[in-house]
Structure formats: C-alpha cells, structure tokens
C-alpha cells in the first residue's frame, strides 16, 4: 500500500474537495507557491480565483472569508503560524461564530481555518510556538486536531463540509507522520467522534495530534511491564466525544490526559472536569500539559522542557496506577 504523509493528506483533502465543490476556495499567505506545502499544486490546478494569495492583512482576510461564506462560498484559510489566530480572534470568535445565532438562523458561515504546523516548531521561539486549540473550544468554535494522515484527510474534509466555522490544527510534530493508506478508503471522518488509538484495560490516556505518538510509545513501554494502556484520541477538541471517552473510562477506571495546551482552563482541564462530574474513577486523574502561562523559550532544551513529553506521561500513568486505594 502506498505511504501517505499527514501533510500530503491535508493537501489531498483540500484538492479533492476543491475539485468536488466549486464553492470551495483557499486563501492565505504564500499559498500560491505553497510555502507550507498545504496548497502544493493547487494554484496550477484551480487558478488565481480559487487559490488567493493575500497581503499580510489577517484581520481583513478572515472577515473577507466570512463575507464570502455569507454569500454562499466555502472558504478555507491557511494561517502560516499559530499566533495569527490570536490576531484574528475577534474575527472568528465574535464574528464568524456569532452570525448564525445573532441573525436568528438566517445564514451560515462555513469557513475552515487551517494551521499547518501548530505548536512548537523547533527553534521558532515564543511567538511562533503556541497551540491555542483550547481557546476555540472555550468560545465554542468547532476545533479538530488530527493525529494520523487518514484522520487529517477525513477531518479536513468534514471541516470544509460543515456549515459552521471549524479550526483545524495540524501540529508540527504530526506533519511528517506517514501511514500505509489504501487511497480508495480515504473518507470524511465525522466531527465530534473520537477513536481508540490503542485498546487497553488498565488506564485510559487521552491524547491529541502529535501527542498520540507519545501516548502510543508510552503504552508500548508499559506493555512490557504488563500494564495495558488504552489510548483515546478525541480527534475533535470541541465538541468533545464525551460518550466515547466515557466508554473507555468505564473499562479502565483510570485516566490521564496529555495535552499541548497550557494547563489552566485548557483542554486537559475540560477532560478532568468531565471526569469529575461523570466518571467513577479508581484513582484521581492527572493531566500532563504545558505549564500555566507557558511561553516557549528559544533554546531547544528549554523549549522541550516546557512541552508535555513521554517521561511526564509515563510518570503520570504510573501515578494513577499506584494511587487510588483511598477512593
């Protein structure tokens, strides 16, 4: 079977959907020459009206996409760096997201925002290393963080087809992931539905995006010690697949989340809050996250120290396995 890389899967999904639906177009910076490769080949295939190279005017082009969506199109915006989402936060959270309710359902805003290379990029430092998916979950904008090439393909497709704004984070650490794929099986992956990335029975590890690889590695390592780790990949940050998570935790009764957000009021907090409200756990759950308020320092070892990693996950999993007698 041919290998498909995550980045190529995104590119393929975008191209397939542009071919299938003439209302889909893509805009962003340096997308004509496809600096990030997300749009590789698309300018030649679809021309300047469907692949719109923009000036550095993120706020205006984000609202421009909202306007185009209100007029019936399905824009996809590529954002070169994750912090550009801070710059257009008003345009997404306060404009695109609110149109449907505020107009009493008169319109829809099917815009997809894609960040190819979210989270830390080695050596890009503080202003280019954010992973702000929890912010969008908080304001209620549909948000996905695919982990595998097939999911990258399928979730991007669903995002574009969804009638609401959807943010797609493609973590830097996942872009290079490759997978054997039968192309004929590539299909939309529904928003809001998680998957079991690895089944297990002793503890559920919730992970997203590139951290799935770490979760699987930790699961492997612990398997050698006779511990059976289930890895649950919600795929969609918001809406969260609470039922899928509940089903996993019902089996394992132990829970650890690894999350590349900052700790406070992040995705990990949400998972633990749901656990506190609804799950009957045998031990207190744990979260492995970026620290509160994290700013990623430039020096590589410091950058790595601030990101959640395998060692911390291992320690957290061990922690929930040994604690809990008092519950």
């Amino acid at each position: 079977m041919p290998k498909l890389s995550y980045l190529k899967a995104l590119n393929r999904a975008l191209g397939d959907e542009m071919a299938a639906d003439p209302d889909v177009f893509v805009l962003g910076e340096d997308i004509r020459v496809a600096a990030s490769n997300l749009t590789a080949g698309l300018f030649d295939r679809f021309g300047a009206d469907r692949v719109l190279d923009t000036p550095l005017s993120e706020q205006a082009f984000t609202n421009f996409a909202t306007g185009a969506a209100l007029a019936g199109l399905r824009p996809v915006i590529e954002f070169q760096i994750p912090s550009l989402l801070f710059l257009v936060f008003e345009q997404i959270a306060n404009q695109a997201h609110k149109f449907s309710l505020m107009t009493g359902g008169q319109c829809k805003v099917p815009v997809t925002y894609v960040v190819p290379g979210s989270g830390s990029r080695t050596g890009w430092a503080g202003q280019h290393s954010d992973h702000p998916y929890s912010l969008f979950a908080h304001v209620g904008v549909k948000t996905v963080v695919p982990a595998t090439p097939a999911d990258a393909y399928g979730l991007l497709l669903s995002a574009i087809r969804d009638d609401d704004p959807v943010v797609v984070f493609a973590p830097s650490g996942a872009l290079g992931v490759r997978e054997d794929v039968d192309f004929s099986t590539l299909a939309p992956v529904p928003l809001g539905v998680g998957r079991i990335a690895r089944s297990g029975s002793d503890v559920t590890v919730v992970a997203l995006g590139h951290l799935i690889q770490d979760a699987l590695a930790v699961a492997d390592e612990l398997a050698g010690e006779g511990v059976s780790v289930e890895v649950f990949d919600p795929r969609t940050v918001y809406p969260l697949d609470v039922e899928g998570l509940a089903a996993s935790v019902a089996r394992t009764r132990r829970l650890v989340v690894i999350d590349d957000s900052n700790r406070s009021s992040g995705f990990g907090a949400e998972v633990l809050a749901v656990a506190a409200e609804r799950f009957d756990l045998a031990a207190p759950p744990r979260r492995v996250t970026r620290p509160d308020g994290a700013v990623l320092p430039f020096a590589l070892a410091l950058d790595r120290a601030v990101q959640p990693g395998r060692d911390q996950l291992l320690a957290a999993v061990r922690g929930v396995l040994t604690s809990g007698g008092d519950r």
Partner: protein
Amino acid sequence: MTSVDLYRTVRLIRRFEERAIEFVRSGEIVGGIHPYIGEEAVAAGVCAALRPDDLITSTHRGHGHVLAKGVNPARMFAELMGRESGLNKGRGGSMHAADFGLGILGANAIVGAAGSIATGAAWAHRRRGRDVVAVSFFGDGAMNEGMLLEAFNLAALWRVPVLFVCENNGYATTMPVAGAVAGSITGRAKAFGIPAFTIDGQDPEKVLAATTAAAERARAGKGPTFLECLTHRLDAHHTFEHRARLSYRSAEELSAGWSRDPVEIQGARLAAADRAAVDAEVEALLDAAAGIALGSAHPDPAAALEYLYASPEVMR
C-alpha cells in the same frame, strides 16, 4: 427614484427613530438604541441607488440603513423589542438587524468590522458572475480601525465591487474627528488607490447621485469607491446619553446641525400637500408596524440556543 420616494424614506427613518426612542423610554425596547436622527439622507440616498439584490452591511447606528434597504418596519420594531417576529427572531436586537432576503448582511456592533465582510461578499458574487454591488456603512470613528484600512487594501487590490460609505458625523461617541483622525478621511482611502469623494450627507439627492455613479463604476468592474458623507448626529450617541450628561459638544453646534435637517431639505422639494400625504402615509405605516410588533410573541427561553450552530448535528 423620485424626490417623493426619497422624502418618504427620510421621513420614515426619522419617525421610526422617534418612536423607537419613545419605546426605549417606555421600556418596550430594552438596552437602548443609537439613534440615526439627522443622518437619514445618507441611508436614503445610498440605498436609493441600489438594486434589491445589492448588499449592505450596517453598524450599531443601523436602523436607517436597513429601513432604506426595504425592511418591514413591523419586523424591525419587533426585533428591537426582542420578539419572535423580529427580523432576527429577537436574537439580534438594535445592533444586529439582518435580512438576508433583502441583501442586508447584518449590522455589526464592532466598529470597523463589516468593511471586510462586505468586501468578501461582493467578491464572492462577482466570482459567481453576478454584477452585484455591496455597500459598507461605517462612521468616522471606524476610519481608525486597522481592520477597516486592511479591507480598503483588499478591495482595491482585487477591484471588488464594494462602496465604502463613511458617515462622518463629527464624533465617535464623544471623540471629535479632529482629535482622532490624523490627515484626512478621504486621503486615507485615496492612499489605497480608491477614488474618494466628500459629499453633503444632509441632502439625499446628492447622496443618491454620488452613489449611483460609484455603483455603476463598481458594476463595470472598476473597483471600489469611497464616499465621505458629511452629516450631523442630532441626537445622542446612544439613548443612555439621555440620562448621563456627557459634555462634548455645544448647543450652538447642535442647532447649526438642525439648520440642515435632511427631512426639511428633502421635504422642501415637495408640494405641501404631497408632503402631508407622505407624512400621513408614514404615520399610518408606523402605527400599524408598532401595533404588530407590540402584539407579537416573545421567543421561548427554552429556545435560547437555537441557531447557535448551523450544523448542530455534530454537537453532542
């Protein structure tokens, strides 16, 4: 569009606003409004130049724009009163009136935000081969919002059929233009290569003429035009000002503004009998509209989150 039609529109807006202010006082409208009194000629003149399928975006001070674009006053009153029969089913209120069937893409409560939305919508229609024009209304204060200036650039670069209509009423809330706008308003548009004109915003016929020319230019594929309409806000920034005394302009300035009342300017062009007939017609229309609005149902609080998502099926 005849002089009578233009008069009918300015008169309709004026009387709608006066009644709306009454409804704020009586508590039927909660939260207050930003009255458009004094600026009616801009909305009337601009929208008179538009086709039904042309688009507009409006502002926090938007009642005049949407009335001029043709909304049913009963549905607009109902919206202000938060009723289910309102334009937005009571979900939007004064600052968000929208009627997509009439090309009204919504009023926007964020100053400067809608210019780029209008630009995107106009671009989308042109891409589909339609010769639709979009108008974005905004105030002098919006000229200092970077996102609006960015929109000028996109519109100019891509020759988008959008008209930028700046209602320069001299103030952003309490901030006078001179304290806020370095350089000139039209100079900013011109800097992006957009033809820009300053016109008398108290005279609907002049506004109509300028807009007609700009719309033709846009339809012909020649890109955006910017119109600075000099006008006077003759009431409060917002009805809260009727209670809170904010001192930022003099009584003389206000009465100078009243000497150029657009209702009088346009009304003077009509024979007295015609004018009286229009006045009566408007009154009857608004009586009926207010009655319908007052009689219509409040939305069900259980449906508070209806319409939150257009694709709610993925929400679980």
